[in-house]
């Protein structure tokens, strides 16, 4: 085993800048500050193993898809990243949002001079229409937050089925005043609304141009780039949008003439190509994955190659979820936690480069996160302690407890599974190894009756507060097929706590409460915190300005060609 590079949580915390909110709009004014040495012109190639799944911002919900969509379609708010300082600023709006009643109503004023790529100006009712549209079941795969909050119901489609069947969204919920002003009204305080407003549902759609499902291929664009051509699963070419005015945008640049996405290459190939940087590959950058686990040794130990890598923890936490409806005995769950060979497992994914060992359910990047001590839970040996775990099992009379371990049937996933199985077996568990198809892994896992006991699960906050973490992952009332509460953890106290914390309007206070909740949940060991994953991205020798965006994805907007 190697050095555990990241057991110091403070280091992780230092790397992940906490986000602040631009309330006064000072940071929302364009143009965006220039990047040092930046140059205009040229084409950057972007490699990614698969095509963007949904091009309609209302539907898309995964990174790096959103990174790309944020380049072509602007929203009410957006994150501005400067060095290690991240601020939520107004994008189309003049600021990140104003609320005078503790978060129940949120008012936005649109900037002047904002236009779609076809040159027509963007008006407030387009934003309202976009929000209304996101209620439709056609786009049910998108983020549900704004809709849920407006309808005050998980089943928001019942309250308002969207503009195609339900007519206009009532003014009680979203009100438009003139071309510039839009007001969102909630029945409860929704302090996180400015963050939610950065999601695709607020990307404006003029009603007349709504092509419904066809928008999933040809979205309405307003960012510095627009789609020039797109071959499904093969390539995407983004070119400059001449109707984008840098003066209206405090976040984005328009350095390169175009981005050419090539979909398909697997991570190994991406590493090979960018490392070689031969021919046009020197103008190439990876967007989401770059260094294959089997290459860390080579890439990270090569001083030249290391220059071509950016490396940072993500906002994600990897857990090994325990199916709490099947593994009901706390002692067994504790034994799992104690036996779990984090280090051996992590080695399969690249050792320290995969990320630091996690001890919490939330990510250090969320507001209010703090490392806490919980004896017997946060102080376990990352190599696993089979003796201790065996003792716990023996004491509970559960020696030989059968655990069905689900893992990804990829070369790496299988090995990780084996390493874990080995550790658990040593601790006296009987392990059923269940390989699962990589592409359907999440779907299979997220079924309530998944027939599994123990499986990998990762969650990244949709914005950097606990609001999209704990209620999603540990609210027992939300257990359903396809939902992220795949531990099936259901604790009345915790549920009540969640309700309480969600009502706190002060972000910092809310964050601190979420951290306490984290500890409280961990007392029941619903899952084994695994790692706070890092991400390494590579870029060709001629690519400058490489940095991460809010999703810890390559920040396209800062990229330029050195020559």
């Amino acid at each position, binding site marked *: *085993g*190697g*050095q555990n590079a990241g057991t110091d949580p403070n280091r992780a915390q230092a790397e992940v800048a906490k986000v602040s909110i631009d309330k006064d709009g000072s940071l929302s004014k364009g143009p965006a500050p220039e990047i040092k040495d930046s140059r205009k012109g040229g084409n950057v190639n972007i490699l990614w193993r698969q095509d963007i799944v949904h091009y309609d911002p209302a539907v898309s919900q995964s990174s790096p898809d959103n990174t790309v969509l944020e380049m072509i379609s602007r929203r009410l708010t957006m994150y501005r990243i400067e060095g290690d300082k991240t601020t939520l600023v107004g994008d189309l709006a003049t600021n990140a949002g104003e609320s005078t009643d503790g978060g129940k109503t949120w008012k936005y004023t649109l900037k002047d001079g904002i236009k779609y790529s076809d040159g027509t100006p963007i008006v407030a009712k387009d934003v309202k229409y976009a929000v209304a549209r996101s209620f439709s079941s056609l786009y049910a795969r998108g983020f549900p937050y704004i809709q849920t909050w407006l309808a005050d119901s998980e089943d928001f489609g019942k309250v308002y089925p969207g503009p195609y069947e339900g007519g206009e969204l009532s003014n009680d919920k979203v009100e438009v005043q003139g071309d510039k002003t839009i007001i969102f009204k909630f029945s409860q305080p929704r302090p996180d609304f400015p963050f939610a407003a950065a999601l695709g549902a607020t990307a404006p759609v003029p009603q007349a141009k709504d092509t419904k499902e066809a928008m999933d291929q040809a979205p309405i664009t307003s960012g510095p780039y627009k789609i020039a051509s797109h071959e499904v699963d093969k390539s995407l070419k983004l070119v400059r949008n001449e109707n984008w005015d840098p003066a209206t945008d405090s976040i984005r640049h328009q350095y390169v003439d175009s981005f050419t996405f090539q979909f398909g290459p697997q991570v*190994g190939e991406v590493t*090979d190509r960018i490392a070689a940087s031969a021919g046009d590959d020197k103008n190439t950058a990876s967007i989401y994955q770059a260094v*294959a*686990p*089997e*290459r*860390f*040794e*080579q890439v*990270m130990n090569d001083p030249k190659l290391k220059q071509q890598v950016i490396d940072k923890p993500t906002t994600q936490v990897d857990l090994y979820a325990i199916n709490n409806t099947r593994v009901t005995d706390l002692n067994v769950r504790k034994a799992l936690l104690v036996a779990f*060979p984090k280090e*051996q497992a992590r*080695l*399969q994914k*690249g*050792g*320290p*480069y995969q990320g630091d060992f996690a001890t919490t359910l939330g990510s250090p990047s969320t507001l209010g996160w703090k490392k806490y001590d919980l004896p017997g839970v946060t102080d376990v040996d990352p190599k696993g302690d089979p003796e201790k775990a065996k003792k716990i099992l023996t004491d509970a009379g559960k020696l030989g407890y059968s655990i*069905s371990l689900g893992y990804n*049937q*990829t*070369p*790496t996933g*299988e*090995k990780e*599974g*084996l*390493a874990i199985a*080995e550790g658990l077996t040593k601790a006296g568990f009987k*392990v*059923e*190894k*269940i*390989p699962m*198809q990589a592409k359907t892994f999440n779907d299979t896992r997220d079924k309530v009756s*998944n*027939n*599994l*006991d123990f499986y990998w699960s990762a969650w990244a906050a949709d914005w950097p507060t606990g609001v999209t973490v704990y209620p999603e992952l540990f609210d027992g009332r939300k257990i359903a097929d396809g939902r992220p509460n795949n531990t099936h953890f259901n604790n009345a106290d915790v549920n009540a706590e969640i309700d309480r914390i969600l009502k706190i309007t002060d972000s910092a206070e809310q964050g601190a409460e979420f951290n306490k909740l984290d500890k409280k949940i961990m007392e029941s060991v619903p899952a084994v915190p695994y790692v706070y994953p890092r991400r390494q991205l590579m870029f060709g020798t001629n690519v400058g300005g490489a940095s991460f965006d809010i999703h810890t994805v390559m920040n396209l907007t800062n990229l330029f060609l050195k020559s």
Partner: protein
Amino acid sequence: MTTADATSVPAGRSKPPVGRSPGQLAWRRFRRDKTGVISGCVVLFFFLVGLGAPLISLLYGKDPDTQYGLERPGLLSDTGIPMKPNGGIDGEFWLGLEPKLGRDVLMQLVYGIRTSLLIALVVVFIVTAVGVIIGITAGYLGGKADYFIGRVIDTLLAIPSTLFFLAFTPIALALFIAPGKEAPAWLRATALILVLSVFGWTRAARLLRGQVLSLREREFIDAARVSGASSRRIVLKELLPNLVTPILVVVTLDVPAMVTTEAALSYLGVGMVEPTPDWGRMIHTGGDYIQTVPTYLVFPGLALLIFVLAFNLLGDSVRDALDPKSHR
């Protein structure tokens, strides 16, 4: 006129040896063929290694499952690459260590032979049996049965088989495996065997059908019928002994074909899964390590190459021995 043949016996040999069966003659011819004997030995070696895997494991003192690299510090770097050069080859780990998990490569290879050979042999057995039955049915009965079987074969041949393997192995697995339970290796193997067999029989069937068709025209079949022999007897006593040669040919063609197909399926991720050692999967993983741990690709790649090569050579020699006229 077949007279040229007639004289070849007395012309070739002054006194024919007593009671030497065609099989014995073929065996004599085979023994004279150096390449054949050598490749036969190599093939035999593979079989022996597969059979004696536990014994080798015992003597060598390693097993295929233990994660040496994880258990013992100092074997793997902190990203899981063997510390020693050449993939960690040393006196202890003769062919080095597997990256990441740090299992013994030699043992993985040795047990991998078992997986490959076992699956291939069972498939070949099934495929040959089915092929023989169907080939005989089509060739001997002719008419509608032949026509029908011919169309079935046409159809199967028109289906891209790898795609089907890919698509149906999961379905076949789902048939066998209870949810939430670990599928024993033999169950997976069964599913694989099933899928491989569904497509595999066509070659044997086509070849044997052709053989039976030509045999059916031979007059000794008529001779048996004139004596009142039942179809059963004709098939079992008259046809089958003459099909031994084509069956052997089919087997020598099919075994390497099945070994490589199985490896290909594992390569694509629908074959045998961890922790069952498997060449195809080793090669797939090895491809990722070609720059860091090339030995991990070289050994299984070479093993597969040698096996297929030896089997192909053996097949050639067997064919030559069985069919002296085919002397190239």
